[in-house]
């Protein structure tokens, strides 16, 4: 999943660069030999295969019952039991799996929206307002990008313990709405895409700062916001260490942590194996859907930006 994350990160700039260098590439196109082109395709093909094989395996494994899982070809179908497996998973312990899925959607969905809003406001303020300590603040935020979430989990646990918030929804939600990278991205993008003249114009028209932000600036920043949202959504969805340290009650678990807990007891309770497999497969579906839906937005967004 980290690979996907990095790819989103690179993508906006990459596609812009591609656009910029587009004519170049077209001009150079015919001169490119067959061999480099084939080589490029082979390299791409190998990597695609490398990334897709595990997912293919997961897909196949989810359709098998426990016996076939070990005795049949791991990369091809045997008896098709997918729906029975899903049924059993959903029924297991009163549908606790669905609860986890819902929790994940809640943590990642609401968390990412709030995080995006906060990050965009902060980044916008840093880009468009002059105030003392601006650069210091920005550098501190930038420093925050360098601190991995994993390193913060334990200090957060100790702090949350002091205020008795561990093992609550807030223990996972509150740290999720902070996105230093989002602030950074918003600042860079606000500087590039929100012209000062436009802000002045709107001030002259009598709009307050807040109104200007929500009606004018935020629209111009939209492609960046979608990227920030996607980022945050994926990182909350995949955040595993924080729930591991914070949560004790099964009904609060996000799906990643729940599956991990099951997986850790497979030695003792082998019947959980199929559940872990099918559960993992189903748990990546919302991510794929989010990506497909939002990709369209930030593509058109970037397009509009480039036309201006």
């Amino acid at each position, binding site marked *: 999943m980290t690979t996907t994350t990095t790819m989103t990160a690179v993508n906006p700039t990459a596609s812009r660069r591609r656009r910029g260098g587009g004519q170049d590439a077209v001009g150079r196109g015919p001169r490119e030999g067959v061999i480099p082109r084939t080589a490029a395709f082979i390299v791409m093909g190998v990597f695609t295969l490398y990334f897709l094989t595990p997912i293919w395996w997961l897909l196949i494994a989810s359709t098998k019952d*426990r*016996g076939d*899982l*070990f*005795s049949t070809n*791991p990369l091809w179908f045997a008896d098709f039991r997918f729906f029975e497996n899903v049924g059993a998973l959903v029924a297991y*312990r009163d549908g606790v799996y669905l609860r986890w899925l819902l929790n994940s959607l809640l943590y990642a969905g609401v968390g990412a929206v709030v995080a995006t809003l906060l990050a965009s406001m902060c980044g916008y303020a840093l880009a468009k307002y002059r105030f003392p*300590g601006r*650069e*210091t603040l920005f*550098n*501190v935020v930038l420093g925050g990008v360098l601190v991995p979430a994993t390193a913060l989990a*334990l*200090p957060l*646990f*100790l*702090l949350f*313990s*002091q205020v*008795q918030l*561990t*093992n609550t929804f807030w223990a996972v939600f509150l740290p999720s709405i902070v996105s230093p990278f989002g602030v950074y991205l918003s600042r860079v993008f606000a500087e590039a895409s929100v012209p000062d003249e436009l802000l002045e114009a709107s001030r002259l028209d009598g709009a307050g700062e807040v109104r200007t932000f929500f009606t004018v600036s935020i629209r111009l920043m939209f492609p960046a916001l979608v990227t920030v949202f996607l980022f945050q959504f994926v990182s909350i969805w995949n955040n595993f260490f924080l729930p*591991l*340290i914070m*949560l*004790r*009650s*099964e009904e609060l678990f996000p799906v990643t942590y729940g599956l*991990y*807990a*099951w*997986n*850790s*007891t*497979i*030695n*003792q*309770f*082998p*019947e*959980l*194996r199929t559940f872990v497999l099918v559960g993992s497969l189903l748990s990546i579906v919302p991510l794929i859907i989010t990506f497909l839906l939002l990709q369209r937005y930030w593509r058109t967004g970037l397009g509009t930006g480039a036309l201006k």
Partner: protein
Amino acid sequence: MRSTKRAATAALLTVSALAVAGCAAGGGSGSGGDAASCEPAGEDVTLTFTSWIPGIEDAVAMWNEENPDIQVEVQTGPSGNAGTYQNFFNQLEAGNAPDLGQIEYDALPNFRVQDGLVDLGACEDVLAAEDQFLDWTWGQVTLGTEDEVYGIPQDQGPMALFYRSDLFEQNGIEVPTTWEEYREAAVKVREAGGYITNFSDSDINQFAGFVWQAGGQWFENDGDAWTVNLTGEESTTVADYWQDLIENDLVSTYPAWTDEWNNAYNSGEVWTWNSAVWGANSILSGAPDTSGNWSVALAPQWNAGDQKAGNWGGSSIAVFNGTEHLYEAAKFALWLNTSEEALTSLNETAQIYPATTAGLELPVLKEGVEFYGGQPIYDVFAEAATQVDPNFTWGPTMTQTYGDVSDGFKAAAQGNGTLLEALEEGQAATISTLEAQSIPVAE
């Protein structure tokens, strides 16, 4: 320049705030440590209990129904070494540990050394319950002391020999009763195209079970200092024995619990497994095509006529430092691990094999098992359970020991170095870890 200074100040403030928080938390957990008296609270109590056993809620629900004044809330997480133990340590540090927690026997000394557990010996009921447990399971929770008790034994993993009765019969091979016969059988099995067993380079627990059976002692604690002895005479015998099997290609060396490993058993490539009672369920689900072909016999012995068994696994319910309800916690833990209704429920939902003598006689453990050709296999394990040496002690840094030994075992399985060398390295690493944690080591 000025802004840099300000940033530094801010950073410093944050760090010291964290440090203060940490200290306060540490102090909190320390002050809760004197809960030595075991008195009823005289009011309604809610206990928190962390366990990763799926289905343990069912047993707890029974308790809650019968004891409205002592309610128990179940919390869960991954299995101990996969994160829950670390969580316990974090919670102890932060002063909000649960009242009760599931702890495997090999991790108990670690919690004891870190001062995380309450001595249940303060409760009369607990001391009086000693007779109900098998000697060796009780030995696992007293940690070699006289009347200190650091948990109530829950389950156990006496070891026996799972074997493919059909293959042994077809090939005219006798089921081995000594390790010498086991090696002879291994040669015949290899000639028939199979492997007698898989040597698991990651399950140091299994190897420890072999050493346990041979009468070895890896750790001893005289109350002041720890003696570490991974390379004693018995350990060396066991290591050399398996080294010989590996070198002569008489055992397979698939990584345990993987698909290949399951497949090796499911396809009849591997014929036996020296495992604990819970292994019955592992084979059943990992090798479903072999249903009806397995049997269970007592483990091969080092000397013909011996009656010794090793143990692999088992856990206890411990009470954490900081609890305000020692009496109620102990009462619940005793009920969970001694009452017939709880033990039956735990066996049904999670195949928990009880640590009490009465528990071994549960009606459900007397039945024949279809997968094992109708053999009442738990009779064999009940016998093995009485043959486990009560004196085996675990060290306080087992996770590290397992890791170090396992690294060496993996190399040895691939022909680099020997099992004995791995144990020697594990020994050295364990001693330096103990010293690094200021845990006294006896020379």
